[in-house]
């Protein structure tokens, strides 16, 4: 397919994708979108930056044709200031939710896309407070700075 419902993705995509997850209006949930802004500001042609509130099955199609994919999200349990781990497909409980984990998106990819997965990393930035209408906390913003340095390193 080549149109809007295509399973093969856009004809030409940037080889590197940073996919940030989070709601900018929910306190530290904004860490993902804030990291995305910082990466976008680097102005790297080979890097595409996407954001969404949460991950779902169709995001598997955004991975098609990439050489490197990095998911960035806030985490309530990651070690401070952030963790960076390679990710692999997994059938976890988030399959049963409106919001998938990165591993579950990769699993959906293996089910609907006829191509090998690129290298995938998940950068989980430690957050602390997630109330609607709140600004990101100072501690979380410190963690963001450290995570952005790691993102720049990964994208080199």
């Amino acid at each position, binding site marked *: 397919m080549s149109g809007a419902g295509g399973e093969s993705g856009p004809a030409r995509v940037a080889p590197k994708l940073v996919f940030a997850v989070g709601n900018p209006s929910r306190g530290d949930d904004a860490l993902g979108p804030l990291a995305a802004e910082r990466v976008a500001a680097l102005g790297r042609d080979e890097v595409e930056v996407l954001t969404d509130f949460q991950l779902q099955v169709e995001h598997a199609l955004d991975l098609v044709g990439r050489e490197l994919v990095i998911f960035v999200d806030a985490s309530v349990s990651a070690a401070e200031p952030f963790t960076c781990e390679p990710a692999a497909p997994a059938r976890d409980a988030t399959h049963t939710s409106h919001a998938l984990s990165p591993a579950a998106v990769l699993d959906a990819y293996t*089910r609907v896309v006829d191509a090998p997965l690129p290298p995938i990393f998940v950068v989980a930035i430690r957050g602390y407070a997630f109330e609607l209408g709140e600004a990101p906390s100072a501690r979380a913003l410190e963690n963001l700075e450290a995570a952005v340095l790691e993102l720049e390193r990964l994208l080199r």
Partner: protein
Amino acid sequence: MAFELETASQRAGLRRVAIDPVTRVEGHGKVTILLDSDDHVHQVRLHIVEFRGFEKFIQGRPYWEVPVMVQRLCGICPVSHHLAASKALDQIVGAKKLTPTAEKVRRLMHYGQIMQSHALHFFHLSSPDLLFGFDSEIAKRNIVGVAAEHPEVARQGVALRKFGQEVIRVTAGKRIHGTGSIPGGINKSLTVAERDYLLADAYRMIGWARDAVHLAKKLHLANIGLYNSFGAFRSNLLSLVSPTGAMDLYDGVLRARDEVGEILFDHIEPDRYWEYLVEEVKPWSYMKFPYIKSLGSERGWYKVGPLARVQNCDEIETPLADAERRELVDFGGGQPVHATLAYHWARMIEMLHATEAIKDLLHDDDLLGEDLVVKGERHERGIGVLEAPRGTLIHHYRVNEDDQIVRANLIVSTTHNNQAMNEAIRQVAKRYLDGRKLTEPLLNHVEVAIRAFDPCLSCATHALGKMPLAIELVDADGEVVDRLVKDA
């Protein structure tokens, strides 16, 4: 008032089972069941954490920011909030009638939202239960199981959802946080290239959506006894319809029918909703319980969403969906179908309607027009009502002379369905749980009933690790005596 199994008459000695949170529904929902020592059910309640802090979030903000801000309430149906807020603010800016381009681009956006939401629900959240049965092993009751045994269904589900998202992206300007709809109209129409891009797949989507209706219908008819009785209850129906009585998901007038299909009220302008609907507060729930004022809380509660809409209207103005609607109505034999699991069948009929409507709109050159915004006499109050994927959505705002929001009230689809969902799970608990040792497959029956409504329980944060899935068995003293974590 209290309904059967809403409140136990004698709580001493009862055990409490909590399903917390409910899986495959959005946000935080919890079901609590009180059992006696013989496992007989005495009380069943669905607890939902509703929008909290919304008024504080939005108070004092200039009204023109609202259509964008409200999208941040919910990651599941941001477009519905975007459009409902815009409709309310149309009234604030005195835009009594939008330009044809603005109205049609907004409708296109809305049908994209209906399509992607319904596709996600049927193909990825509910079809595992429906295809494999409620008692199947947990590992198969997810999309992985569907994908493995029905590979085309899974692929088509992803592609249908992706298409709906692309319709939203093109009309709203961005994948998320779109700004396409503004008070009085829209800020961009479609280019020829955008229209052709969507048209390239529009017909294929109609075919797949029609297949999906047939699959949902086949599942229902293949096990009529179960599907007709599971979580079934009789209630009134509420939705918007067009002034001529046709299905209209974006605009129209309010119509309600009683449980046998007789009209309760009709042709009610949406900004008079408060004259016909009131909300009851119950001490055990954050979420209110709306009902039809003239009938009172005991008889006036109702259901909204696909099953209500498909049967509340007199016709659907796209031919394939209308043919399917007539089959569902005929299946009811002259009375409304009240089977909770028929929500899936009705939902797929609506998805088919959305795909047909998208195709029709893409052939309408008004989408390419340049007349985007109208303004008129300024007002202080605005009420926007539309049919979101899950049911009727009401946005109600008051604005001061400095253009600031001073009051906001939302009645979301899940609130309208609050009593209906509680009734459905009480029916299931009475039929399947009473007197039996509880097991995960039995508890899943409760979740299957809730999922049929596709509730958007709240606008929770989705940070990694934020959603533990656990079932707890708690004794009468509040001590946790057993715990099952639903995890990988």
